[in-house]
């Protein structure tokens, strides 16, 4: 992102933010409610047009090469976005077709994804019959089906219990480790951030810290992401 700005009428949601997600890393976009995380995600996946600034995805300007750039992205939205009346397989097949996968690729990748998730028996289960944790796992699988280079997630763990949250994050971290996926993980929960993650702190539409979590914590003189978060947010709030 370079000098990215967006406002809802008079209210500035993002105020000239710039940062880059390091390739093959889990980057946590941490911020309190109202920080601008969802707006940023909406801009990156091109639901909204930025009013100023540039978004580059794998070096491609999103404004000029929208479709190619979107092909590099896997997206998990805050809302539960599975088609509840369709089965798991039908949901995944729809997503695969929307990303241009052939039938044979689709079949193979659905098979592989369900095995990876440990949910091969869920293939013909309707999405509405899944629990919240499993629905989210399927949404992650759906976002990753076309092998994107970047996974964009907006508060994916909201509404999940602690074991489901942990399991979901573990799944995404496995994808980072094994597949070299870059992740931008928007969250307001400090305990989802690990010390080796890239940490981008967002508050009131501005980036107030960006770097390796371990280094940010050392700079503040704390061992806790939550404590660092509180310190940095209070410093940046007038």
């Amino acid at each position, binding site marked *: 992102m370079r000098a990215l700005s967006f406002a809802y009428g008079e209210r500035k949601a993002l105020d000239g933010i710039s940062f880059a997600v390091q390739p093959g890393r889990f980057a946590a976009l941490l911020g309190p409610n109202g920080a601008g*995380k969802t707006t940023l995600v909406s801009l990156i996946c*091109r*639901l*909204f047009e930025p009013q100023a600034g540039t978004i580059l995805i794998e070096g491609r300007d999103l404004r000029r090469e929208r479709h190619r750039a979107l092909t590099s992205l896997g997206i998990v*939205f805050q*809302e*539960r976005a599975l088609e509840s009346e369709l089965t798991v397989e039908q949901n995944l097949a729809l*997503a695969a*077709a*929307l990303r241009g996968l052939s039938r044979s690729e689709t079949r193979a990748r659905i098979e592989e994804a369900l095995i990876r998730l440990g949910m091969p028996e869920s293939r013909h289960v309707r999405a509405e019959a899944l629990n919240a944790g499993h629905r989210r796992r399927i949404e992650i699988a759906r976002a990753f089906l076309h092998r994107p280079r970047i996974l964009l997630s907006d508060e994916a763990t909201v509404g999940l219990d602690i074991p489901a949250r942990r399991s979901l994050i573990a799944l995404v971290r496995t994808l980072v480790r094994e597949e070299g996926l870059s992740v931008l993980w928007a969250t307001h929960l400090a305990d989802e951030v690990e010390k080796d993650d890239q940490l981008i702190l967002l508050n009131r539409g501005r980036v107030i810290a960006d770097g390796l979590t371990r280094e940010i914590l050392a700079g503040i003189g704390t061992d806790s992401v939550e404590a660092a978060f509180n310190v940095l947010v209070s410093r940046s709030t007038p």
Partner: protein
Amino acid sequence: MTASGYWRAFAAIVHRELLRFWHQRERLIAALVRPLLWLIVFGAGFRSVLGLSITPPYQSYILYELYIVPGLCGMIQLFAGMQSSLAMVYDRAMGALRVLLTAPFPRWFLLLARLAGGVITSTLQVYAFLVITILYGIDVPWLGLLTVLPALILTGFMMGAAGLLIASFLRRVENFAGIMNFVIFPAFFLSSALYPLWRMEEANSTLAWVCALNPFTHAVELIRFALYGRLEPPALAVVLAVTALLFAAAIWAYDPARSFRAGRTAISAE
């Protein structure tokens, strides 16, 4: 994206609409009950009251029930179009629309594919109605079932495009009652669906003029003539023009950023 990629995405979106329709079979029953009530109850009541002269495409005196069949086909499509707007609002609230709109395809293409799915389901509903109508004893020509198909596709697109446009302005599913009162009823009653325009002209020339301007009238007439294997060029021209206009407006209205600038939060924002 390659041409085959476009085709797969198009087919997948249409397939999704068909699956959803299949999973909501009660929709088919609801869609059939309404016109059948009109046909059987209303038609029987008005048969003796309303005299119909011989007007094209009919070549002899016809029963009132036969006259209202094209209008009831249009009614099914009108309701289907408005229901698709309701589904769009629901998808927007649930997040499914975000998944669709962030696919690497032009927005017009994604909306067109969704529209095509809706047209197929509404056409299936009309055919189910027409078959029941024939079984009930109404003299709909069998060949008409074939010749009416292009007309149904066109009128289905028109109603669906209207639904798409309305969906972009509709914030809540609860507002559907407003659509009933301000779109469906006026469109249906101020048309040639239930009475020929010359009868309306005799009663109230201003209303007849409004009916003649109503695009739904032209959709009904297109279906009416097509059922007898005839093309009504003015109706075709109006339906094509209105469809193009409504679809273009729907694409414009589905720009979420524009929606925000207009102060309407089309997609909830943090």
